[in-house]
């Protein structure tokens, strides 16, 4: 798991630095809360699919500080994110932006669901359209009639 990788990375430096450090926190709780929310959507570039909020890699620390600087400078959330994406590319976004190369990714779940649902409906229709079990032969009909007449069903020998 990727957090292991990070533990490995940091533990090489023999520290237990864990994600957001006290020194990084902004004095203004509202700004800090915004920073935390944004951080959770930004990837730590040297980690495996881990957000900078969770990571304790040095680079994640740098991006956390950079992000907080932008917020203090008065950026809105989208502006701050845009600033970081301009420097690190779309790769930094844990939620891939909807664009040509990600249409398949974003459309697949609803399309899968729709196709599956359609398939299930068609299959059910086809089943319903098919004739039921073959009608009873004369012999079987007679047997059934006999069975229905007797009160206790007799066991065929």
């Amino acid at each position: 798991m990727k957090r292991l990788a990070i533990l490995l990375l940091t533990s090489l430096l023999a520290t237990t630095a864990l994600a957001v450090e006290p020194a990084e926190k902004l004095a203004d709780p509202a700004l800090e809360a915004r920073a935390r929310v944004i951080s959770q959507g930004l990837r730590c570039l040297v980690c495996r699919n881990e957000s900078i909020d969770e990571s304790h890699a040095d680079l994640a620390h740098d991006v956390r500080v950079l992000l907080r600087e932008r917020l203090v400078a008065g950026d809105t959330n989208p502006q701050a994110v845009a600033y970081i994406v301009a420097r690190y590319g779309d790769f930094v976004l844990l939620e891939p932006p909807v664009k040509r190369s990600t249409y398949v990714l974003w459309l697949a779940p609803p399309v899968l669901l729709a196709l599956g649902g359609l398939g299930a409906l068609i299959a059910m229709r086809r089943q319903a359209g098919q004739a039921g079990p073959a009608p009873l032969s004369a012999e079987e009909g007679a047997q059934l009639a006999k069975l229905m007449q007797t009160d206790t069903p007799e066991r065929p020998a």
Partner: protein
Amino acid sequence: MITEFGHFALIVGFAVALAQSFVPLLGAARGDAGMIGVGRNAALALFALMAIAMASLIHAYVTSDFSVVNVAQNSHTDKPMLYKVSGLWGNHEGSMLLWVFILALCGGAVATFCRNLPPALGARVLSVQGMIAAGFLAFILATSNPFLRIAVPPANGQGLNPVLQDPGLAFHPPFLYLGYVGFSVSFAFAIAALIDGKVDAAWARWVRPWALAAWCALTLGIALGSWWAYYTLGWGGWWFWDPVENASFMPWLAGTALIHSAIVVEKRDALKSWTILLAIVTFSLSLVGTFLVRSGVLTSVHAFAVDPARGSFILALLIVAIGGSLVLYAVRAPALAGGGLFAPVSREGALVLNNLLMATAAGSVLLGTLYPLFLDVVGGDKISVGAPFFNKTFVPLMVPVLLTMAIGPLLGWKRGDLLGALQRLWLAFVAAFLACLVAYYATSGGPVMAIVGFALAAWVGMGAIVEWAERVALFRVRPGLSLRRAIHLPRAAHGMTLAHFGIAVTVAGIAASAFDAEQIDLVAIGGAMRVGQYEMTLERVDRREGPNYLADEATFNVRRDGALIAVMHPQRRFFPLQERTTSETAIRTGIGADLYIALGDPDPQGRWTVRAYWKPLVSWIWGGALLMALGGMVSLTDRRWRIGVAVKARATGAAAVAAGE
């Protein structure tokens, strides 16, 4: 010497697996009882051989035989005994041996319990299992031999990664592998049925307990891994949508669909070809998971093998196994059509909806996991697919799953009465509404999804109780009679109630995580910090010595409203051998909430970095998973799996009818 025995057992095992692959298959085709009989003996022999191989590697670990490369690289004389043994599967070669051992265990179990199977079906099942075993044994012998020796053994081993030295992680891989590999049995049954060209209620009855057992093990394995992450990583995260987690989650989703669709095959003789496909897909996803983790495609700690020879070997195995079975399916499945009819609103219909949503969820997770790799390979953009994507796609799929989960069991087979079912669920409506209100007021608002989560949890939980209460006619007849009904209820019914209730518990735990409180501070000795309603005073930090580490142990006095309620001791441990530090969190677990403290580094002024969390209902997440697994196990004790009454009755009935004519 013992190590060479193990190596030898692997080589002989490969030959035996080859025999198991082809002799019974031929025997089933020719109707040769002698050749069919080879399957059982080969499977039992393979199990014995793999047990010898496992035992000899365990022996090397326990005796710290550093002339074995694998032991030298992953063990150390100072390690506690538990981690000497679990170190075996903490690395690539050893974990592949565990994989094959469990596969042989499953094969042995099939061979033992297959007496009441039609001989040809049993032979084909065993032969498919033999093929899988042969493939993986070839992989181990060619690229990942755990029994290699070193010419000049080192004085001591390199030890095991400290974060893996943990009881939770010692048992996580065996359970996970039991789940992964356990699905090989339903896969083998599916392939055998395709060759046979026959799927009926009896087939589903044989297959379902195996799938259910694998599902239970996988549930426990995933829960253990998640729990381990929670208490180890120092910030209380428990699910990350990490590719390695996804690798275990995809077979779980598909397996969940499988154990449900097999019900329809068993009870109603419908959904046959779909169930076969699910059995193939579930095991294929297990193989994909093994490939993702073992090939080094993902550069995480789990992917110790960064060796292209291994990667391409597993990829080839994957293509042969998955491609081959899907081709067979395409050729033979159309012949399986037919079976019971049902209206869209019916028990079958609800199970189809469950299957549709679970399969879509598994597909979305698969795509989200592989898409960045795919884009990278075709030279497209570099993108990340992380938690936000999975939450956005997965959660909307799970909401209808939870909604139908309460309704489905109340619908009749063939044609259900939706309005009637909803009316009988009035108590669940009330529970969901109350949950909304309570959550809203207790937390003064909060994310909408969290409130919805609580409502869904209450709906599913109360739905499970209502269904069970109806079956035993609770409060409608006198209690003694209800009790008698409960005793005579099939165990599978109790199992379903437990498992569905477990889902409700887990969902509540997940929803509650929106209300976590967190505090990260620098605290001096004697200083205090607050999280939620708790005040924590750092009394002192002491140096402790463990078997193979040094620890700084903090002592926190935890007060609530001025009264001392707990003393907690988080540690940071330094492992000199690996020069690594880990965090040993202190957690005060409660049914209502966990209090969680992790100790970080000191700063130059002697203040300590402390992370403290208040996590409401977090233990429910794993408690619910335990209930699910327990439900599965209770269901496994159902009488109908043990006695082939239905099969025999049908056989004798058919014979009698034929005779009567």
